[in-house]
């Protein structure tokens, strides 16, 4: 019998798949959580944070005006602002109140504020006291900054007019940014800023439970020896189990992508209705099918790489718990390049295209953003396939080591 004869490999694959699909933990960790839990979590976090920020932005904050006896105009105009209410009379312990969040911010003006402003000369100091750890305090401080910014603008315009000058005097150069990127590329790069990380993470977590269950778990349950007593070769067993783990890894990533797309399609209308223009960026997102196709192609060797690596780790471990201990550094080793690949300023080049995981992360970001750097894509595919083959070879070697298989 050839060591890679297909029939026994398929027998092992079908049996492992059947057993895993009957395992509630496998279904929850690889399908339910990523397809339902993760989008729900993102939606809840997004919804709650948008709600908190929205409420804080729309609420009126109490502010204190200190030393403004000489400027009733400022007090009156601030009162008309709408977003803040000036506390009257000004409490003596205003500083403590800002720290205690009972008053959101305080403006400290010199007693001769109006006179100094009318006189001109040195800038008149205005201090805005706020609480850096309080979102509402920061919003109130921003409102006050805006108010004094407008006041400054009005005074400057009045002084220019008095001097017979126009505002152009203060703007010798008029700088403007002009975006030349088509909207789909801008939207794609938004998706590319987070999607590769999620996909890589899901690919890894999708492989983890099956890989450990089919190796260390089998050792624990005593079924490994039963399997080894059959005439199927160790390589065939390894390949059968590897196919199962890869199927779960790919399945998890693809189901999650499909699920997130479905959630987004269903939820974008609701988001726009709830959050209004603020959600328009999300609601208008479009992703090209070609980008998705390219990422799926890259996912295959990535899933092979993760599955083979985790299987090797699992078969080496004495128990699932020991395997999970070994897996912690591996998870970091996979997540760190995935995150690095998304950092602003990182540029894909041929050297990066050779580094596994980092290359997939960066190429995915590029293709989601509508860029197709073909040489780097080819290098990435070649590199990740090479490392995947190496990991698979290592796994089959591990399955042939009796000191590993019978490690007790």
């Amino acid at each position: 019998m050839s060591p890679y004869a297909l029939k026994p490999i398929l027998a092992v694959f079908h049996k492992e798949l059947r057993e895993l699909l009957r395992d509630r933990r496998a279904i929850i960790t690889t399908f339910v959580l990523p397809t339902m839990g993760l989008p729900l979590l993102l939606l809840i976090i997004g919804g709650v944070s948008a709600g908190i920020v929205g409420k804080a932005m729309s609420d009126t904050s109490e502010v204190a005006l200190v030393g403004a006896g000489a400027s009733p105009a400022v007090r009156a105009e601030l009162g008309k602002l709408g977003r803040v209410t000036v506390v009257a009379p000004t409490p003596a312990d205003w500083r403590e109140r800002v720290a205690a969040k009972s008053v959101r911010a305080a403006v400290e003006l010199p007693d001769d504020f109006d006179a100094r402003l009318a006189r001109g000369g040195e800038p008149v100091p205005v201090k805005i006291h706020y609480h850096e750890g309080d979102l509402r305090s920061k919003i109130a401080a921003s409102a006050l900054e805006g108010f004094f910014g407008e006041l400054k603008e009005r005074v400057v315009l009045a002084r220019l007019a008095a001097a017979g000058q126009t505002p152009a005097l203060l703007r010798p150069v008029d700088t403007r940014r002009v975006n030349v990127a088509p909207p789909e590329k801008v939207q794609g790069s938004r998706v590319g800023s987070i999607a590769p990380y999620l996909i890589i993470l899901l690919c890894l977590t999708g492989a983890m439970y099956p890989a450990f269950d089919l190796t260390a778990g089998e050792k624990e349950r005593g079924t490994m020896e039963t399997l080894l007593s059959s005439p199927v070769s160790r390589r065939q067993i390894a390949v059968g189990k590897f196919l199962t783990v890869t199927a779960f890894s790919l399945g998890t990533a693809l189901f999650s992508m499909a699920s997130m797309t479905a959630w987004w399609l269903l939820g974008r209308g609701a988001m726009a209705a709830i959050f209004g223009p603020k959600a328009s960026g999300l609601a208008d997102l479009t992703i090209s099918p070609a980008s998705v196709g390219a990422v799926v192609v890259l996912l295959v060797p990535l899933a092979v790489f993760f599955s083979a690596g985790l299987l090797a780790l699992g078969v080496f471990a004495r128990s699932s718990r020991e395997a999970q201990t070994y897996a912690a550094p591996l998870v970091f080793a996979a997540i760190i390049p995935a995150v690095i690949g998304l950092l602003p300023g990182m540029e894909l080049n041929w050297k990066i295209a050779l580094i596994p995981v980092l290359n997939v992360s960066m190429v995915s970001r590029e293709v989601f953003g509508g860029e197709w750097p073909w040489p780097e894509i080819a290098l990435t595919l070649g590199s990740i396939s090479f490392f995947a083959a190496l990991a698979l070879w290592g796994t089959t070697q591990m399955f042939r080591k009796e000191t590993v298989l019978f490690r007790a």
Partner: protein
Amino acid sequence: MIEARALSKTYPGKPPVQAVQDVTFTCRPGEIYGLLGANGAGKTTTLRMLATMLRPTGGSAMVGGHDSVAEPDQARACVGFLSTATALYSRLTAGETVRYFGRLHGLSEKIIRERSARLFDRLEMRAFEDRRCDKLSTGQKQRVSIARTLIHDPPVMIFDEPTTGLDVMTARSILAFVRECRGAGKAVIYSTHIMHEAEKLCDRVGVIHGGRLLAEGKPEDLRREGEDLEDAFVRIVGGEGGES
């Protein structure tokens, strides 16, 4: 037929551990050969080498006419291996388990259907054929294990302490099954540290201790006047403190 010729196994380490040294014996078709030894004597390592799960570091073995080192897959295909360590897949049903092992042995679906039907009838498994293994009683699990080892009708059966931890009734059914295997002309190796079991069951026994086969023969030939097999065993391994 099983022939172990100077089988040896040394595990690497500092210092290396010599688990089995120069073990030689023969088990003929229609014979039950008992391998007697205390825990850690080298029984399981010897049996795992015969079943080609472990590769010997010295010597060789012929199993069902195949060299266990040169043709491990063919040798393993001739063996039915049953021990307390060979558990069942909890999430498969009894029927699925037996059929799965039929497939692993390369049997056609037709033969698997025919043989599993015969085995299920003979072992009275019909009532729980479709029940998952984690829902079965210990006795039912043992019957599934037996069916699993017999689905490919192997000429060689290896039992490694199969009754350890079982209740009396289940243990008796296992012993009856072992006798059936002998009756069917299979070469049977039966490892145990329960002496009265070996005395009742085995045609010949080998006493293994510290990885070496110290004595071999019919149980009555190993006993001296007034001794039972347990006394003989203790004498052969060097007294009460002879445990390895």
